């Protein structure tokens, strides 16, 4: 087996830490240590965190993928900040598959930085979406590919937290990007 990915587990539960160690034994993931709280620094390649640990969000300050390990019901929105979510009822195979996906080099998407505003192009695309234009119509208008339009739309949603067309339209009006009268 080639190089192992060093993993730290942050949880105050011995059962959870021990369980993960057992599950990840004889895989390319090596659990280096289990900590009850977020450390000041780490050289691990992957962090598994139990979001019930107070102050867990400190883990996002490290430049390391962070995976949540959940054992109860959590709000989907707060789970969306993690690179993946392991549930304690996941099978061993599912856990390993999810972790592999997180550390694989093809997984190049990085989270959007805090407080990023929409770019001028994203605002133009948003106005088109609000007016009810289809992706291909938007692509034609700006002479870009449909794929690029989709990427812009994805980024708009990631920045605003708004997914539906109705919600994006409301956002565009509230932001003064579009006049309410111009919508139908």
């Amino acid at each position, binding site marked *: 087996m080639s190089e192992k990915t060093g993993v730290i587990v942050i949880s105050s539960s011995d059962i959870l830490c021990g369980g993960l160690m057992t599950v990840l034994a004889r895989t390319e993931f090596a659990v280096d240590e289990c900590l009850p709280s977020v450390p000041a620094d780490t050289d691990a390649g992957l962090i598994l965190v139990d979001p019930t640990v107070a102050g867990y969000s400190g883990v996002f300050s490290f430049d390391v993928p962070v995976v949540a390990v959940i054992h109860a*019901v959590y709000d989907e929105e707060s789970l969306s900040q993690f690179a993946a979510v392991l549930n304690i009822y996941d099978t061993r195979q599912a856990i390993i598959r999810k972790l592999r996906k997180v550390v694989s080099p093809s997984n190049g998407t990085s989270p959007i930085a805090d407080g990023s505003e929409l770019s001028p192009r994203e605002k133009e695309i948003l106005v088109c979406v609000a007016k009810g234009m289809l992706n291909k119509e938007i692509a034609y208008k700006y002479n870009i590919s449909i794929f690029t339009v989709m990427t812009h739309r994805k980024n708009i949603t990631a920045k605003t937290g708004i997914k539906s067309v109705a919600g994006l339209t409301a956002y565009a009006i509230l932001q003064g990007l579009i006049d309410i009268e111009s919508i139908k």
Partner: protein
Amino acid sequence: MTEYDANKEFFLSPKMKMSDLVNSNPDLLNILDRFGIRLGFGEDSVEQCCRKQDKDAFTFLMICRIAAYGGYLPGSSELDKVKVADLTGFLRSSHDSYQDAWLPELESKIDVVLSGRPDAQKKVISEFFVKFKDELHKHFEMEEKKIFPSLDAIGKKGKGARRIFKEEHDNIGEKIQDLINLLLKYLPYGNPDTCVTVLLTHLFFLKKDLATHSRIEDCLILPLLKGWESHE
């Protein structure tokens, strides 16, 4: 003895006091109401309480477990024991509680937040809400007309509806989150924030409750319909 006993897994058991069940999981209070279990049960256990009120304790506890534990998924031997009439009764009454209590309450809170604001803001938010309400209403109607009857009749049809059903659950969750973000991030500062906070608190609770409701339906209805279809 070796048989898997779901009641021994997860902490909710038919022998526990109904009052302990609620005190340890306050979110389950809504489930009692929608399952038709009236309060005032004194020291009765879950089993006794259900028997006295002519409700199926097994089905009730299964719903409670799905609501209380995100990772709980009933197996096929448990699904076989579900009393379908109690399940569909519960789901129908959940729909009623959203339409008759939750949504009107939400609407009146939105009215308070929007009062005295510029027309454009009023129009944007209220139109978004009206669309959401219509969508929810249509979704409930589809379930009540297409899905529940096929469950009640021990599953025929309902096949095509299944895909739509899951998709619609996702859409509903998205719309509520959109409304939360619009109010939280983009509605310009207007009247005192307290009323917006009250509205948001209500919305967060509704979001969680609707997500639980969808999860109960996804965990029970889909496998039940599937199981019955494969028997035919």
